[in-house]
C-alpha cells in the first residue's frame, strides 16, 4: 500500500448538494418519537409500582394490628379452621376420632382433665406410643406441631379443642402458649399415656411405656454424623444436628431407612446425581450406609422448614390432598401417606421437607437430572407440574408438621422384609 496512485474516481468538489435542506431525516424523528412514547408508557407503569409498594406497607400495619387483637383472646373460629386443616385428617371433623386408630378429642377424658393447657403441650410436642383415652387403647404417632404453628395458632387450636369440642370454659392465650414453648418447646414427643402423667392430674390408668430402648448409636455412626472421616464431611455439617435440613439440603429425620439407604447407594452408583453426595457416598461402606439410614430414620426432630417460595398454599394443598387429575397428577398423599408422613420403604415422608429441596427435586425430575424414583413415577409428575405448581406444593408441604420417628423394632422388621430391588431405577 505504499505506492498507491491517487484514485481515479476523484470526488466531486461540489459534493453533498442537498446538505442545506436535508436537516434531520424523518426516520430519525419517527424513531425518536416512538421511543419517547414508549418511555412515557414504561414510566407510567413504574409509577404504579410505587403505589403497589405503598399499599403493601399499609396492609402490613393492618395485619399487625389484627394480630395484636388476636393475642388478647383466641379466635375460636380461626381455631376451627386450623383444626380442620391440621387435625381433622386423623381425629375427624368433629374430633370424634377413629376407633382403634385415632383417639377422640370430643368428650375425651384427656382433654377434659388436662384442659387447653394439656392440649397445648401435646400439640406442641407430639405424642407417640401406647395411650388410653376413655378406656380404649390407642397406639399411634402424633407429630409435633410446635415448629409449624405459631403461638397464636396453637392457642386457637387448643382453645377450640377445649371449649368448642368439649365444654371446658377455659381457653388459653398466645402469651401462655409462648410460656409453655419456653419450657417444653424443644422436648421430645410424649412417651405414650404414661408420659402425660406429670402433666395431667388424676389421669386414668395408662399402659406402661414400652419405649424401645433407642440404645447408644454405634460409635462409628456418631463419628460419621458429627465429625466425618479423613475424606468425608460430617453429615450434620450440612443436614443439621437434628437432620432437619436447610434450603436444598433435605430433611432426613424420620425418612424410611430403606429409602435413605437406596439414595446413598444411588449416589454411589451415579444413578442419582449430586456431586457432594456422590463424594460422600463413595466414602461410605454398605454397613455404614445401613447404620446411617437407621440413625436418621429413628430420629425425631422439629420442622426446620417454612414456606419460602411464594407458592400458592391453596393450590399446594389441592395438589397434596386431591391432586390435579386434569394434568394427570394424583394427590401427593395418595402415595406419600396422609399428611405426607411417608409409607415405608419406598415412599419417603414429605411433610416438613425443605421447600427449596422439594421444588428443586421436582424440577430435576421434570428435566430428567434425577431419575431414580420407583417405576419412574416422579418423572411424569415432575413434568406435569409447572414452576408455580412446584413452588405451591413445596411450600404447602413445608407448612406441615414433621413426620414422627420410626422406632427401631419397626426398622428391624422392615430391613428383614424388604427385598432390595436393584436395577429397576428409571
Amino acid at each position, binding site marked *: *500500500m*505504499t505506492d*498507491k496512485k*491517487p*484514485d481515479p*474516481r*476523484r*470526488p466531486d*468538489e461540489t*459534493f*453533498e448538494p442537498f*446538505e*442545506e435542506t*436535508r*436537516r*434531520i*431525516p424523518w*426516520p*430519525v*424523528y419517527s*424513531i*425518536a418519537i416512538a*421511543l*419517547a412514547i*414508549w*418511555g*412515557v408508557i*414504561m*414510566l407510567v*407503569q*413504574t*409509577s404504579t*409500582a*410505587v403505589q403497589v*409498594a*405503598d399499599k403493601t*406497607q399499609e396492609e402490613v400495619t393492618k395485619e399487625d394490628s389484627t394480630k395484636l387483637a388476636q393475642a388478647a383472646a383466641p379466635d375460636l373460629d380461626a381455631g376451627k379452621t386450623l383444626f380442620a386443616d391440621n387435625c381433622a385428617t386423623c381425629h375427624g371433623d368433629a374430633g370424634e376420632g377413629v376407633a382403634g386408630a385415632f383417639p377422640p378429642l370430643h368428650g375425651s377424658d384427656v382433654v377434659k382433665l388436662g384442659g387447653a393447657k394439656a392440649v397445648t403441650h401435646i400439640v406442641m410436642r407430639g405424642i407417640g406410643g401406647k395411650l388410653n383415652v376413655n378406656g380404649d387403647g390407642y397406639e399411634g404417632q402424633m407429630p409435633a406441631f410446635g415448629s409449624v404453628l405459631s403461638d397464636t395458632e396453637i392457642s386457637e387450636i387448643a382453645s377450640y379443642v377445649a371449649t368448642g369440642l368439649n365444654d371446658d370454659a377455659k381457653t388459653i392465650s398466645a402469651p401462655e402458649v409462648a410460656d409453655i414453648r419456653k419450657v417444653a418447646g424443644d422436648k421430645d414427643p410424649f412417651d405414650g399415656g404414661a408420659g402425660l402423667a406429670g402433666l395431667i392430674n388424676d389421669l386414668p390408668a395408662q399402659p406402661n411405656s414400652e419405649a424401645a430402648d433407642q440404645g447408644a448409636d454405634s460409635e462409628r455412626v456418631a463419628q460419621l454424623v458429627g465429625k466425618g472421616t479423613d475424606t468425608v464431611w460430617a453429615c450434620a455439617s450440612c443436614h443439621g444436628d437434628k437432620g432437619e435440613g436447610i434450603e436444598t439440603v433435605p430433611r432426613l429425620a424420620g425418612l424410611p431407612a430403606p429409602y435413605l439407604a437406596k439414595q446413598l447407594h444411588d449416589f454411589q452408583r451415579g444413578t442419582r*446425581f449430586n*456431586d457432594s453426595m456422590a463424594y460422600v457416598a463413595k466414602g461410605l461402606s454398605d454397613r455404614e450406609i445401613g447404620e446411617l439410614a437407621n440413625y436418621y430414620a429413628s430420629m425425631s426432630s422439629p420442622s426446620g422448614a417454612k414456606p419460602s417460595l411464594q407458592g400458592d398454599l391453596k393450590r399446594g394443598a389441592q395438589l397434596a390432598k386431591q391432586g390435579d387429575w386434569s394434568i394427570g397428577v394424583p394427590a401427593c398423599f395418595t402415595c406419600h401417606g396422609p399428611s405426607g408422613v411417608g409409607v415405608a420403604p419406598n415412599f419417603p415422608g414429605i411433610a416438613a421437607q425443605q421447600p427449596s429441596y422439594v*421444588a*428443586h427435586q421436582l*424440577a*430435576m425430575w*421434570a*428435566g*430428567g*437430572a434425577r431419575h431414580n424414583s420407583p417405576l419412574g413415577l416422579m418423572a411424569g409428575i*415432575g413434568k406435569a407440574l409447572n*414452576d408455580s405448581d*412446584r413452588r405451591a406444593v413445596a411450600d404447602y408441604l413445608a407448612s406441615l408438621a414433621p413426620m414422627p420417628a420410626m422406632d427401631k423394632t419397626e426398622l428391624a422388621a422392615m430391613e428383614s422384609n424388604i427385598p432390595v430391588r436393584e436395577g429397576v431405577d428409571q
Partner: protein
Amino acid sequence: MQITETLGLLLALSFVISLLALTILIWAIANKQVHTPDADDARTIFEPGEGADIDYPDKPHHFDTARSGIDANSSSVVMWLIAAAVFWLIYGSLHGLAASLELHLPDLMSGTAQMTFGRMRTVHLNSVAYGWASQGGLAAVCWIIPRIFRTNLRMTGLLKVGIVLWNIGLAAGVLAIANGWTDGLEWLEIPWQIDIILAAGAACFVAPLIATAKNRNVHHIYVSGWYFLAGVLWFPVLFIVANIPGVHHGVEQATMNWWYAHNVLGLWLTPLGVGTAYYFIPKIIGKPVYSYALSLVGFWALALFYSQVGIHHLIGGPVPTWLVTLSVVHSVMMFVPVIAVAINQHVTVASNLWALKESMPLRFISFGAVMYTLASFQGSIEALRSVNSITHFTHYTVAHAHLGAYAFVSLVLMGAIYQIVPRATGKYWPFPRMIAWHFWLNVIGFAVYFFSLTIGGILQGLAQLDATKPFADSVILLKPYLEGRSLGGGLMTLGHVLLAINLIAIGFAKKTRETETENMVAAE
C-alpha cells in the same frame, strides 16, 4: 413514604427534562433558531482547497505542510501516549488471554494467588481500560484538538507530567490488584490511595486541553472537539466522585458503581472513539461528513441519555423499580444519538467505499464506527427486562462489553495510531503488510470471540432460567464456547503484537517522510 412520592416525581421529571431538551434541540435545528452547524462547519477540518484527495497514511499530504508546525508541537506528547497505550494493550491482552484460558483450564495456573482468575481478569480490565483505551484516546485527543483548533497544543510539559503520573499510578494499581489489594468494585478496583496519583495525572490533562481550546484559531468547534472537551471534563469528575472513600456503601454503592462504570464507557471511552472517528473518517476520505447538523443531535442525546443508563446492570436487583426503569428507558433512547452518529459516519463512508481499499487506518476506523452502532443497538435491546433476564449474569454481557470497548473503541484507536504515527514521527511504517495482517487477525479473532460468547451466553442464560436444569448444566454447556473465546482472544493478541512490532520498528527506522514533505513544499 414521603420519599417514595418525591422520587416518583423526580423520576418523571428526569425523563421529561431529557425529552424536552431533545425536542427543543430538534425543533431549533429544524427551524434554524440557533446557529446549527452545517456543511461549512463540517469543512473546518480541511484547509481551503483541501478535501479532494484521500489522506493516505503513508504518503505526504499537501495539507500536512500547512499543519506541520502544529503537529510537530504535539507529536512528542502523542508518541509518549501511544507508546504507553500500546504497552498496556499488550500487557492487558496477555492477562485477558490468560484469564480466558483459566476459565476452561482451571488448574493451569492455580499455584499462585497473583495468577488466580479473579485477579488476572481485573488486571486485564484495568490495563486495557485505563492504560490502553484511555491513553490511546488521549493520544488521539492531543493530536486532533490542535489540528481542528489550528493552534499549538498548550502546556505540553504539564501533559508529560500527567502521562508519567498516570502510568506510575496505573502500574501501582495493577500491582496492588495482582497482590490482592483492591477496592473491590468493578471498574474501580484500584485502591483509592493510588487513585490519588491517577486523579492528579488526569487533572494534568484537563488544563492544557482547555487552554488549547481557548486559544483556538477557528470560529467553529468541530464535532470531535465537543466530544473530546466534554469527555475530558466528565472523566475526572466521575473518577473523583466514585473514588471518594467512606461515602458509598451497600446498595447505594452499587448504583454509584454502575453510574460510574457505565459512564466511563458512555462519557469517556465512547466520546474518545466517536470523536476520533468523526475526525478521521472525513479527513482520510477527504470529504466532510454527511448531514453534519445531525451530529448536534448525536452529541447532546448521547450526553442526556447515556449518562443515565448505568442501572441497567442491576435489572432485577435490590434497587428501586423506578431507578431501573429510568435506566431501561434511557438505554432504549440511546437509539436516537446512535442513529444520528450512524447516519453521519456510515453514509460518509458508504458513499466513498473506494477509500476503504486505499486506506488501512480508515478500514480500522470505519469498522470500529460500525461496531459502535451495533454495540449500542445491542446494548439498548439488552437493557429490556425480558432480554436482560436471559443475558444478564452470562458471558453474553462479556461479548457485548468487548463489542463496545474492543471492536469499537480499540479498533478506532488502532486506526488512529496507524494514521497518526507516520505523521507524528515523519517516518513510514516499516512493515505495511503487517497492518493488514493486524486488521484481519483482529476482525477474525473478534468474530470468533464474539460469536462464541454470544451463543454460549444465551445458552447459559436459558439454562439458568430453566429450573429443571441443574446449575451444573449451565457450566458444562459453556465450556466449548469458552475455548472458542480463548482462540479468538489469542488471534486478537497476536494482532496487537504485530502493532507493537511495527511501533518498535518505526522507532528505529530512518526518517524518510520529512524529506519528501520538504520536496513538496518546494514544489508548491
